[in-house]
């Protein structure tokens, strides 16, 4: 069968096929969940805890019920089924159960005739609190055993010693996914006691499982539908307003819409875990890693969400993309009264990549060795054991390839103009060109693909030939990344036609596609679409005695033997697949085992201009070389690489949720700063195509790599500019200035 774009197929794999939802999006007609509306709908609103930790001593909803236009006011007592929900562990009450455990925890929900009445009613509810001391220190929590998970990795000889030793302590801040689209839910009663739900989600089946448990309803009575989403990046992997909007709709028998505004969105979804990481790297005189020891403490906040899996990711990538035969890692993710943390693009690997890449640079300094040479010397390759888990790398892993490719990209020219827009501080006019010092830094990152540790990870797809064309049915969530396009392209190439439409099925129509996360959908849903397309193709060819399938029918010996109309005479023909990746296993008590389904590697190089006296940074360029397996859609890949770099840059220089006593001090776009057009660096990308051992056409997932090693590359560049090691992100100006007194400002050259 053809693996290249078939003759006659214009928009198959390998092309930058246009996304099918592009036109509605540019013309303002795309139906995001937050745009859904109906004549008689009610609006939902949420009352939240003003304390990070408090006992609820009085809850009186009568003032809200008494307001005109209010149709329902619900509390935890009104939850019909399981009182607790959660993706990995069911530990979070649907609504406050008497103790608020984080600032903003939902207490009660209201449905009213209009948005303003709903909000006013929520505010009118009387809630009296007895504040309790918040536990906001993850180290203290870990010391007291308040942890969602502890992990221990021991591989090789714990007593091994290297002649060159570097230690460091590193911190990463709480980062928010900040997708532009807000949390939104739209619940429609079906008149039979059930509901149709349209909610911003990354995994409708896992949402569905939790919703029916809490509502005590039969699976088919609630249908979760894929809905239009304005970005996710992990924020939608967990339940936010899902159960609430469903409860309000059931209680009122009416359509209910619920949308979080930006401030509520900051409170209403999980964050990236802030991390504290202590490392010791030991090498021999030639720069071969001998042992890596690390202690990691992640702050999981109030409820479990996906903390167990995040910690595992962080721990397993403690060493990074390098060989090391002796590894000692102790890691914990704590339960505190800080904002709950969960999935954000990179999922634990971001934090440990920062720590380990800073360490590699320190090691290179101690060895008086070029930082890239040190990385090449220790680079992981297929056939090597993963340093932490001992798993032998299968599939492709072009670690040296990505290093070489990013190094080969020509550096940008030195700054010659005085245009303030090209200087640190921009139009703020803070910095004369003479005050600028340029730095260059590199980093390499590794990530696993799909779910791990024995999780039964699968994706379903159904491919159907109709008289009008091919339909690809899936419940996978398209969050903007371009999965929809890739599914079309795969089906087009296999089935020999451009006429392919993706149809989003709800939870009652098809099985789970799994989460849109873990860089998994191209390989998993793409893999399911591929196999379903192959199955359909094989069946049609066999049924009609042919040897080829083209746009207009089945062919034998280059002659058509059956038209599409004839093929579909008895109705559409379909093939359904439940696709699984290679099996993974739970690690043993030392963290050893075939824990992961596959790996992807990337390298980044950053060029920064620094004003050391003010501690201001302009990120001039971030280049990347990415291991992609097979480029199914080059333009979409570039979009992921550039977008991910921007999020990595945000963490490096400006993004931080400031949390004090469990309270978020900057839950707005005014003070939670994400990069704008005038902060964005130029980006050059290179891709390396070495096919992976599973997935459609050898393609790998690439969604997370760009956010992983971009951050340490930028920090390494700043460090290079000022001649000082840096230890925390986002890098505050104070950390840069610290050296200003002794630094002779070099004329920019």
């Amino acid at each position: 069968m053809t693996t290249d774009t078939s003759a006659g197929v214009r928009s198959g794999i390998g092309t930058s096929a246009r996304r099918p939802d592009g036109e509605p999006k540019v013309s303002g007609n795309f139906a995001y969940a937050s745009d859904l509306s109906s004549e008689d709908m009610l609006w939902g609103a949420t009352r939240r805890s003003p304390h990070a930790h408090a006992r609820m001593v009085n809850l009186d909803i009568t003032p809200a019920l008494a307001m005109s236009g209010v149709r329902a006011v619900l509390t935890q007592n009104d939850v019909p089924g399981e009182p607790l929900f959660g993706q990995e562990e069911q530990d979070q009450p649907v609504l406050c159960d008497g103790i608020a455990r984080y600032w903003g925890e939902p207490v009660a929900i209201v449905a009213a005739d209009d948005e303003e009445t709903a909000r006013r009613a929520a505010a009118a509810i009387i809630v009296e609190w007895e504040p309790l001391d918040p536990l906001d220190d993850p180290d203290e929590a870990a010391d007291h055993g308040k942890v969602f998970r502890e992990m221990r990795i021991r591989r090789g000889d714990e007593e091994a010693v290297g002649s060159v030793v570097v230690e460091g302590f590193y911190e990463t801040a709480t980062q928010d996914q900040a997708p532009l689209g807000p949390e939104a839910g739209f619940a429609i009663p079906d008149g039979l006691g059930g509901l149709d739900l349209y909610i911003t989600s990354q995994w409708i089946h896992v949402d569905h499982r939790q919703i029916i448990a809490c509502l005590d309803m039969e699976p088919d009575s609630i249908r979760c539908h894929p809905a239009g989403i304005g970005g996710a990046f992990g924020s939608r992997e967990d339940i936010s307003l899902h159960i609430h909007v469903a409860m309000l709709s059931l209680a009122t028998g009416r359509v209910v819409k619920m949308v979080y505004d930006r401030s509520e969105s900051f409170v209403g979804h999980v964050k990236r875990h802030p991390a504290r990481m202590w490392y010791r790297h030991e090498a021999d005189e030639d720069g071969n890693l001998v042992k890596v020891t690390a202690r990691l403490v992640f702050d999981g906040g109030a409820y479990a969400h996906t903390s167990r899996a995040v910690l595992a990711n962080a721990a397993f990538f403690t060493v990074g993309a390098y060989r090391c035969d002796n590894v000692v890692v102790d890691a914990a993710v704590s339960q505190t009264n800080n904002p709950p943390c969960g999935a954000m693009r990179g999922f634990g690997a971001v934090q440990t990549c920062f720590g380990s890449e800073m360490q590699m640079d320190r090691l290179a300094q101690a060895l008086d060795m070029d930082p890239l040479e040190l990385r090449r010397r220790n680079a992981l390759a297929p056939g090597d054991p993963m340093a932490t888990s001992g798993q032998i790398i299968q599939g492709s892993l072009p670690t040296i390839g990505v290093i070489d490719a990013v190094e080969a990209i020509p550096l940008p020219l030195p700054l010659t103009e005085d245009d303030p827009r090209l200087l640190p501080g921009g139009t703020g006019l803070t910095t004369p060109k003479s005050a600028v010092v340029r730095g260059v830094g590199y980093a390499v990152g590794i990530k696993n693909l799909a779910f791990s540790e024995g999780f039964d990870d699968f994706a379903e797809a159904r491919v159907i030939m109709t008289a009008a064309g091919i339909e690809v049915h899936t419940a996978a969530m398209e969050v903007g990344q371009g999965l929809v396009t890739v599914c079309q392209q795969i089906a087009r190439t296999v089935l020999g036609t451009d006429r392919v439409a993706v149809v989003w099925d709800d939870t009652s129509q098809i099985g789970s596609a799994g989460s849109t996360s873990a860089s998994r959908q191209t390989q998993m849903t793409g893999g399911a679409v591929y196999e379903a397309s192959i199955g359909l193709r094989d069946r049609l060819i066999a049924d009609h005695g042919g040897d080829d399938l083209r746009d207009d029918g089945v062919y034998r010996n280059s002659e058509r033997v059956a038209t599409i109309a004839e093929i579909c005479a008895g109705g559409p023909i379909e093939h359904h697949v439940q696709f699984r990746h290679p099996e993974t296993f739970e690690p043993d008590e030392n963290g050893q085992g075939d824990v992961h389904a596959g790996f992807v590697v990337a390298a980044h190089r950053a060029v920064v201009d620094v004003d050391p006296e003010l501690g201001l940074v302009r990120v001039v360029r971030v280049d990347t070389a990415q291991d992609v397996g097979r480029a199914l859609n080059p333009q979409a890949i570039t979009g992921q690489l550039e977008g991910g770099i921007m999020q990595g840059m945000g963490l490096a220089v400006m993004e931080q949720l400031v949390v004090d006593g469990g309270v978020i001090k900057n839950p707005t776009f005014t003070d939670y700063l994400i990069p704008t057009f005038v902060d964005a660096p130029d980006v050059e990308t290179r891709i390396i195509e070495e096919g992976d051992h599973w997935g459609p056409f050898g393609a790998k997932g690439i969604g997370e790599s760009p956010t992983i090693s971009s951050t340490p590359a930028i920090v390494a560049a700043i460090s290079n500019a000022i001649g000082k090691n840096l230890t925390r992100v986002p890098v505050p100006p104070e950390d840069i200035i610290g050296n200003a007194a002794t630094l002779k400002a070099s004329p920019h050259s």
Partner: protein
Amino acid sequence: MEFTAAHDLEEALVAKAQQPDAQLLAGGTDLMVEVNLADHRPPKVISLRRVEELQEVLPDRIGAGATWARLERSQYRALAQAARTIGSPQIRAAGTIGGNVGTASPAGDGLPWIAAADADIVVQSAERGERIIPWSEFFVGVKRTSIQPDEVITGVAVPQDVPVAQEFAKVGARNAMVISTVSCVVMRGEDGYRVALGSVAPTPIRATRAEQMINAESTVSDAALDEFARIVSDEVTPITDHRSTEAYRRHAAGVLARRLVERTLA
């Protein structure tokens, strides 16, 4: 909500006199944030958008209704520089200097220029007519001014002796749409330097001790600039908040002031 769209200044003044508790609306870039996010429901609003008298920009009088987009082309160099950093192009198309003055945020980007220029704030009421208030008597605290409830800001009166050599700079945590960490305006005139700063005190301030020191120097040596910067750092009274620390603001204030003096000399 009672809404009055004033079509001229007199209508606006009469309305404000009748409704002293009414909120004035020009660009909306401050008021509407309160409406959207804090559920602020002003019972009475008077819109100034259509009042042409407020749009007039002359060398000695900048109308309160002049937008920051317009002021990007101001003849006053440092004011134009400041205008360019305010918010975003969309914010600048709507936000006005009158709004910036009336809101009187400690971080108001247009306010250090007013202080350095020794400009006056012109307010007017139906009953008492025009009142000219020196800037230092107008800005009295964090988001507090000495305006009376029946008064409307009509403009900024710019003295004739505003030096031509003037420079602005603002430090922020990113390069657009950012509340300033520290901002500074330095003017070099025949009678010496003027140094104004924002975000380092409850109101915009002049660094008078630093000015005295540098104006006493016959030549501006490196050593003098070092001392000048040190005094600026010492003189300001910034706070630590979620955006920055007192220590950084002190340091940055000194650096900016020094660099701007150097720029006025270049």
